[in-house]
């Protein structure tokens, strides 16, 4: 009997082994061409951000090579050093393309770093709210609701107005703005998972709270977190660019894309569009690519849409 069953299920088992969850996820994800374009976009941005010093034609922050005679060259002109500035130069004579590569590095770095820390804080707080329930839950969710009733830009403005400028300050502001989204997401999922039988089983085994929360509860809350995390990185980059444009974000020594756009804004009225427009396009490309990936992840990871 058992032998017969094993033989009967063998081909099926092989097929199941062939289609691992990861592989199914990847094939689902790739069904959308626009999502693949998004992934390629994100890869391109990541490569540029990581290898900016080796990819850019010049080092825009090396004062020895930057020449003020090169300032505000239109796209395609040759600089004093003989390098062609494909996207023109800015007011200080820096090659725009190189400045954008470096700027992308700062923008992406700030966005990813703040998103990651906010995710860690939000997950811990959200899981605590869901797992312990009662007063802890009520207190935490009051704070989360209160914070989410204010727009992100206002909270960032309040923090930066009292803290001042700086890379560390803007990362702190972005973390404070974002953690509540993660906390709310992870709490909502964990509330559903908490009442399932595997958690009950783990509790009956007298496992420690920490083990149950992080080894059993957390892995099952991951899918929505991945989606929110992706979208939050994009919105953190956009918010940082906005704040830097307003002049309350990053200091001049750390020119992110937003700061480059802001620098170019003053030349806009005299028709020197490239100083502002190209960094803007780079920012747009970054945000749209990440959002495309996030949208597709939402569709693929949504259990209600699963076939």
């Amino acid at each position, binding site marked *: 009997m058992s032998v017969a069953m094993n033989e009967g299920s063998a081909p099926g088992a092989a097929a199941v082994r062939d289609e691992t969850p990861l592989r199914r996820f990847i094939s689902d994800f790739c069904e959308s061409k626009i999502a693949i374009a998004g992934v390629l976009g994100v890869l391109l941005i990541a490569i540029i951000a990581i290898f900016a010093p080796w990819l850019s034609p010049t080092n825009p922050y090396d004062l020895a090579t930057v020449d003020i005679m090169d300032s505000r060259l239109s796209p395609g002109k040759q600089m004093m050093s003989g390098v062609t500035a494909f996207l023109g130069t800015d007011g200080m004579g820096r090659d725009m393309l190189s400045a954008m590569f470096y700027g992308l590095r700062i923008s992406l770095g700030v966005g990813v770093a703040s998103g990651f820390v906010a995710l860690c804080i939000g997950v811990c707080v959200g899981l605590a709210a869901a797992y312990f329930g009662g007063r802890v839950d009520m207190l935490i969710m009051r704070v989360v609701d209160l914070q989410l009733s*204010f727009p992100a830009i206002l909270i960032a403005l309040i923090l930066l107005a*009292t803290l001042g400028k700086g890379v560390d300050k803007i990362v702190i502001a972005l973390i404070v703005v974002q953690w509540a989204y993660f906390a709310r997401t992870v709490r909502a999922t964990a509330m559903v998972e908490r009442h399932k039988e595997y958690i009950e089983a783990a509790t009956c085994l007298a496992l420690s709270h920490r083990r149950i929360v992080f080894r059993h509860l957390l892995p099952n809350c991951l899918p929505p977190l991945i989606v929110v995390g992706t979208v939050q990185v994009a919105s953190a980059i956009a918010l940082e*660019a906005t704040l830097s444009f*307003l002049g309350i974000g990053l200091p001049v020594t750390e020119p992110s894309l937003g700061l480059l756009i802001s620098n170019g804004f003053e030349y806009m009225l005299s028709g020197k569009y490239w100083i502002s427009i190209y960094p*803007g396009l780079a*920012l747009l490309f970054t945000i749209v690519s990440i959002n495309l990936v996030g949208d597709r992840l939402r569709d693929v990871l949504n259990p209600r849409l699963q076939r």
Partner: protein
Amino acid sequence: MSVFIIRRLLQSIVVIWVMSLLVFGGVYLIGDPIDMLINPEADQEDIEAAIRALGLDKPIHEQYWYFLANALKGDLGKSFIFSEPALQLILARAPATMELAIVASLMSIMLGIPLGMWAGLKPNSIAGKSIMTGSILGFSLPSFWVGILFIMLFAVMLGVLPAGGRGPTTEFLGLQVSFLSAKGLSHILLPAVNLALFKLSLVIRLSRAGTQEVIHQDYIKFARAKGLSERRIILVHVLKNILIPVVTVIGLEFGSVIAFAVVTETVFAWPGMGKLIIESIDQLDRPVIVAYLMIIVFMFIVINLLVDILYSILDPRVRLQDIRA
């Protein structure tokens, strides 16, 4: 009902109190209040006089009491730059911001509802699809960059609209407004559209979803069976039913329009509260910063309170839930 309002009111007071603690903590404990609140260009005697006037020589709990008492009297300090009370300075700029925010909100409703209904009625047409794609763009484009593009296109390249500023104002109900003269309108058009874009996308999505839900309801079928014209069905029966959620959301979002006006005002040099706070941060005019923060948080709490109360009137389930909780 009254139980609900009292509860919400108490909550709001607690939030304002916490906020005052935070601002006090930020200014008096983390920073140096002598540095923050007294003009750095004052001489030694003035500084000492100001320290006594602000009560900075007292223990910390008495200082907090001074701060609270002054704030309640409406005294939030004097601007270093303008030598005017900070509160007055901000309130003088408030009408410009309000006008911009109201025009932008109206614009997003007037344009968003028809566009959203169109997209909902004809979801597979080219127009319907492009409206939805446009609304996605409205969500993901950073608004300051769109503002820059507007300036480049309409002010620099085409030269048809002014690049910034408020232009001439006309007196209306005792306030200075721009929308009554043609010149003023040309000044407010670009900033208002820029500020409206995000909300416009939101309204389009809401009214599209609403239309698609309403159109399959029995009363629409009944209206068709009665032989009403398609125009009347859409303009009366569908429109009325999608209006409620859309107007509620726009009311809820009004606060965030005011907050986002900071960006638009900076791009278009619109002389409102938002531009003032950015300039004050730039010039380290701290009394104005502190006053702005207190005012904007207070405003938000009032808006949130009003919306919650209105909501509980419109939807009884909300207040029942809260009373039980």
